[in-house]
């Protein structure tokens, strides 16, 4: 088994994670800024990645900045915001070709890190505000993005499910922000939000590739050191108390195919003792083409092209999704619900348990072969505050027993059935 070693160093204002690996021809650098999910400031936060990536003091417009990256052998640089449990995480990802493969003597990595650092810490600012025209343009782009969510029916149905299911919880907040906030956001207020964020957010920096640890630490110190910030985390997550009353929601839209999305509460989070059994559970229930959902909804009844499930590790959700003909709603729904009953009553074989374990382990190992995949796995651990070596993760999955999976099934509660259907509703 080949598992990358991670070295974590507490630095001034950030945590540095070094992942030396000979697997890649490139070096990946990822910075993650984390804050609790909050309605206030959420639209500013959604705007920031794209505004920051447009210009720095040194490279004051998109074209000069992009040209500089192109000259560094097409260094890839992207950023986005995402929801991890009830955290709003901004990620900045850079990928640079390792100099050993280039017929070139320039310090490509160091020059790329300079740009990375400038984008984060030295953006284009005039008179205490970001560039007016950049902010105005990025507001338009974000507006467009928010409005276009409806055009991707699978994402839209998923968003609506969570809207209904987690109505009074921070988890239902939209990471891309809200149109109603746009009017009050200016180049100046956005800069104020940015200053607070860049000082206060928890910062983790990951560097992976065929690198020398001492050299990388030196470079990181030069480009990521922050003055302020305690780099501490004291956020408490909301917990749902009391019993859940399952609800069923049908909404209409102009679609050819209905989108059936079902939300369950697993009551299990990353690092919990039964988290491993949950992974194996999902493998049998809906995670793979061999799972119950695929075999029954698709192969046995020909109702769908896809029927699958996935779980959210920090919020404790299990989400089922399938695309079915509007007229087949009731049948598809009852088949999906029956599969959960079958899981509770232990209607699966020991062989299925073993197969599921192998697949979960295979998936984990494949993910860790990829630089960004490994960084995401490790960041999950950072988020949960539980540092578990990969060998132990795999060992824990291997140790799952059939009765553990049944216990997981019993813990899982149905919360919301959501169906996005055509206007005729298939009647």
């Amino acid at each position, binding site marked *: 088994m080949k598992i990358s070693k991670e070295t974590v160093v507490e630095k001034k204002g950030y945590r540095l994670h070094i992942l030396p690996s000979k697997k890649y021809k490139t070096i990946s650098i990822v910075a993650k800024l984390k804050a609790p999910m909050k309605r206030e400031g959420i639209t500013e936060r959604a705007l920031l990645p794209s505004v920051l990536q447009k210009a720095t003091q040194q490279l004051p417009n998109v074209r000069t900045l992009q040209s500089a990256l192109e000259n560094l052998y097409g260094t890839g640089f992207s950023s986005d915001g995402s929801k991890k449990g009830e955290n709003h995480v901004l990620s900045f990802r850079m990928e640079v070709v390792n100099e050993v493969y280039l017929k070139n003597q320039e310090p490509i990595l160091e020059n790329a890190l300079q740009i990375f650092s400038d984008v984060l810490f030295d953006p284009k600012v005039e008179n205490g505000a970001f560039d007016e025209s950049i902010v105005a343009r990025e507001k338009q782009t974000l507006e467009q*993005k928010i409005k276009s969510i409806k055009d*991707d029916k699978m994402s839209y149905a998923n968003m609506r499910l969570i809207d209904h299911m987690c109505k009074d919880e921070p988890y239902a907040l939209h990471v891309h922000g809200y149109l109603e906030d746009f009017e009050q956001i200016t180049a100046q207020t956005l800069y104020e939000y940015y200053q607070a964020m860049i000082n206060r957010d928890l910062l983790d920096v990951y560097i992976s590739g065929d690198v020398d640890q001492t050299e990388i630490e030196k470079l990181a110190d030069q480009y990521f050191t922050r003055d302020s910030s305690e780099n501490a985390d004291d956020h408490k997550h909301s917990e749902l108390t009391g019993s859940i009353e399952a609800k069923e929601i049908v909404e209409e839209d102009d679609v050819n195919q209905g989108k059936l999305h079902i939300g369950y509460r697993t009551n299990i989070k990353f690092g919990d003792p039964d988290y491993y059994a949950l992974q194996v559970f999902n493998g049998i229930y809906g995670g793979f083409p061999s799972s119950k959902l695929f075999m029954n909804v698709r192969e046995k009844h020909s109702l769908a092209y896809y029927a699958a499930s996935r779980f959210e590790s920090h919020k404790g959700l299990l989400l089922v999704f399938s695309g079915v003909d509007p007229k087949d709603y009731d049948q598809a729904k009852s088949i999906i619900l029956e599969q959960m009953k079958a899981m509770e009553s232990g209607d699966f074989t020991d062989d299925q348990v073993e197969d599921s374990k192998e*697949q979960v382990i295979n998936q984990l190992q494949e993910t860790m072969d990829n630089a960004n995949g490994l960084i995401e796995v490790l960041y999950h651990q950072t988020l949960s505050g539980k540092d578990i070596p990969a060998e132990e993760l795999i060992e824990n999955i291997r140790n799952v027993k059939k009765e553990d999976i049944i216990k997981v099934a019993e813990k899982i509660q149905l919360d919301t059935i959501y169906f996005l259907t055509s206007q005729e509703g298939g009647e």
Partner: protein
Amino acid sequence: MEELVYEQLNESVFREKMDNGLQVFLLSKPELAKTYGIFTTNYGSIDQTFTPIGKNEKVTVPEGIAHFLEHKLFEKEDRDVFQDFTKLGASANAFTSFTKTAYLFSATSQIEKNVETLLDFVQDPYFSKESVDKEKGIIAQEIKMYDDQPDWRAFFGTIQSLYEKHPVKVDIAGTVDSIQEITKDDLYTCYETFYHPSNMVLFVAGNFNPEEMMEQIRTNQDNKDFKEIPEIERSYPDEPKSVAKAEGSITMPVTTAKAMVGVKEDVSSLNGEELLRAELISGMILDFYFSRSGEFYDELYQADLIDDSFQFETELDRQFGFTILGGDSRKPDELAARLKEMLHSIKEKKISEEDFTRMKRKKIGQFMRALNSLEFIANQFTHYHTLGVDLFDVLPVIESLSAEDADQYVEHWIKDDRISVFQVKPQEQ
């Protein structure tokens, strides 16, 4: 077995042609946990008219059959092949494109058995009337899922504007109606013609011993009986060089309109190496003007004619080629008109040596980054191999290009009768 060594990239590929004609490539990456294997036939959605093996007359099969066949190969008389891979801790998948059908797995253990399973299931078809009928419902839902995706509709709408007769204009999965006509006999006809080992390529990349792996594949193939076949006769309609329609559109329930501009590329006279050069040069020219560092992108973005969804791509293959640019736009008519003007103006402009060097560096970097992915290496190597090109020659070819090559290329590139505009329009509220 022959070893091809690419020193600058620190890669090597083992190659062998089996007695039955199957072309095998192995790339060993012991640093990785994963192995990826892909078994490809040089047969896709455009191969609709051909002379079946053992027959004298051409037949035309229903639209969407290559993709239908891909689905059905996973089902055997007694089992579903997905389960076999599951038992081996692997994940399996398949895809059909215009010119290829490919079956693949990835795994971190039991690699030999997984390769064996891949070869055996693809080389042992079982089609029955019941299972063919059952699949129609599943594929109909797949088609309807795509029907709801505006990007897919925009892409295909553009191709349909460019091409008048060529089957590249037919949706890869066919239509809900066309797949109803497919029979088990049709599937066998296509299978026997196109799944002969001499029309196929196996590429395995990852963590294994290449000598032992090749030996295993050789034994596997030697134990199977394939009759030698003559070269496959495929037939395609005569496609004019000019576009089918200069303009087209559909109406869909989208919030934002889409405008696409397509260029019908002439690939008829290009051999493999020329195709690769054309693909690289057009990619670099488009990058220079239309990526975020480019003057055209900047103008379009500042004028609010495009947003982050703006994309461009060139696809050149046997039989057809196209370049498509576009995306969401609040002013689709204006975007389409401006894009056309811009494409025409490229001929009048020059890219400086310095800028061209920057685009070369970018291309080299993108290629190196892509080489981190086993999937990219295996899929792209196979694709280029069928066109007569070696994937790892991409690097020296990029290095050999000059601004002059770009100047020459644009001279003959954009012609008015080879451009189409296609729009996805929102419904009236």
